[in-house]
């Protein structure tokens, strides 16, 4: 978490096996709020670098040599709970993205995201908020609307009408700010709805979530 956002920029570690891509993202993340402090190109290097530098946010490619992004999260999350992960991927393979989210990533964005939106997403994740790409929001809507919730954990298996509404706007490409205006609620409220949905996505016992997502190639 970021405590002194005004004094200290958010520290970011880039994990991607393409050096050119890292260079590109590094060049784009020119934002006074952010500072890229290190890079890594595979799972082992990522774990080492993140443990050594303990950044606020890790921008994590879903596919890496030597394992997947979720392996990095699994190795880091318990020991360094203050490190947040944002998955950044070209992947259309839903299982990879869902695995990364369920491993503990705070959000998912595609590599086609505009530079300013990427910076904004990093800031959000550093502040503990969730980041949904339109596709991820669409996936959530589809996954949670389909059948009856698990009676053992109905609160994890169902979206509230408000959460559903927020997800719909996200799927339509609206930013939190725009959603707040449309629904005449505060941005903070929109953010807390999104975080609640992320938590449900991570904890729901909808056991076939991943295989189902793969079948529908939704993310």
């Amino acid at each position, binding site marked *: 978490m970021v405590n002194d956002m005004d004094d200290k920029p958010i520290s970011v570690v880039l994990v991607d*096996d*393409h050096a*050119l*891509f890292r260079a*590109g993202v590094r060049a*784009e993340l020119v934002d006074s709020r952010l500072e890229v402090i290190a890079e890594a190109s595979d799972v082992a290097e990522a774990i080492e670098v993140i443990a050594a530098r303990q950044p606020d946010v890790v921008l994590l490619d879903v*596919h890496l040599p030597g394992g997947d992004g979720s392996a990095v999260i699994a190795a880091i999350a318990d020991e360094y709970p203050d490190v947040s992960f944002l998955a950044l991927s*070209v*992947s*259309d*393979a*839903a*299982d990879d993205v869902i695995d990364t989210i369920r491993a503990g990533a705070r959000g998912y964005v595609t*590599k*086609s995201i*505009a530079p300013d939106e990427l910076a904004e997403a990093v800031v959000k994740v550093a502040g503990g908020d969730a980041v949904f790409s*339109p*596709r991820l*929001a*669409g996936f959530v*809507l*589809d996954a949670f*609307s389909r059948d009856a919730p698990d009676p053992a954990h109905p609160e994890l298996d169902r979206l509230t009408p408000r959460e559903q509404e927020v997800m*719909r706007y996200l*799927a*339509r*490409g*609206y930013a939190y700010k725009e959603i707040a205006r449309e629904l005449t609620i505060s941005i903070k409220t929109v953010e807390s709805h999104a975080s609640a949905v992320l938590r449900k996505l991570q904890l729901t016992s909808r056991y076939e979530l991943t295989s189902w997502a*793969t*079948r*529908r*190639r939704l993310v």
Partner: protein
Amino acid sequence: MKDLSGREPDRHIGTAHAGPVAFTAATDRTRVLGMAMIAGGVLFLLRWLGLGDRIVWPVLLVGAGAVVAWQTDHVEVVLSGTERRLAIARVAGGMLLVGSGLAAVVSVSFSAARDGIFATMVVLAGAGLIFGPWIWSLANELTAERQARIRADERSQVAAHLHDSVLQTLALIQRQSSEPGTVALARRQERELRGWLYDGPIGVEATDLRSAIRDAAAEIEDMHRVRVEIVVVGELELDEAGTALVAATREAMVNAAKWSQADEIAVYVEIEPALISVFVRDRGVGFVPADIGMDRQGIANSILDRLDRVGGRAEVTSEVGEGTEVRLFLPRVVNSNTNGE
């Protein structure tokens, strides 16, 4: 199967049809009849040769066994539980008959050695007849299965490789090239590669809403050099109303591509039991809805007309500097006839 993921063996790479071809019921019957006639013929032949009942009856048994067992040689790759049990029963029956034949032959006294040898040869030939085709087809089947598996493995390796290399590079080009032509080219290559890896082939007439909108968007990306990001929730087979909705969505996308000056258009489609909603949004220049020019009015009409005919409706909201959103709604015809009066 419409929704094979890229990880699974893919349909358009060619599914290897496993060896044996299923015989139709008609050829099956013909064959059984043929077998019976041959068995009968052999019987008469043996009688005519002056062989005793001790030989003739075992041969008949073997023949019957062959007829029964022959029917199992078209074991397909997939057999249901009952079919499998039936097949096993048939083979067991065939083997029982052959066994009886053999037993009868063995019981033939050695004084009739000549008959015995002859009978044994007949039995062996029968066994060959019974099991030969079955073993042959089984071997073919295994080979075909192994080939299909190898092909699927190779394909998923290629897919993973393309994903980690080519798609990444195409994403990079789109991010970093300032040349619009290059970006458009990389985008098209990415789309085609994704289509090949994950979806059905492009260029085949779409039969569901998701693919139809994807195809329309692809066309617009090529024509107008914009990105169209599509999110679809739910599934729908295309019918007349669905086709009209796709056409209206296409018009809305063209409209955004032509007028908004935005470089990305977001399309969201939600298919609910009673309603299909489509949102086409851009963050472009927007306009004041009150003073829409004739051109735009014309396009708005072409959207409205298409939807009107199938009972849908459309809304447009726009704000100068904020962008435009076109919303299309198509109520689904709910089949309520069964609910009685």
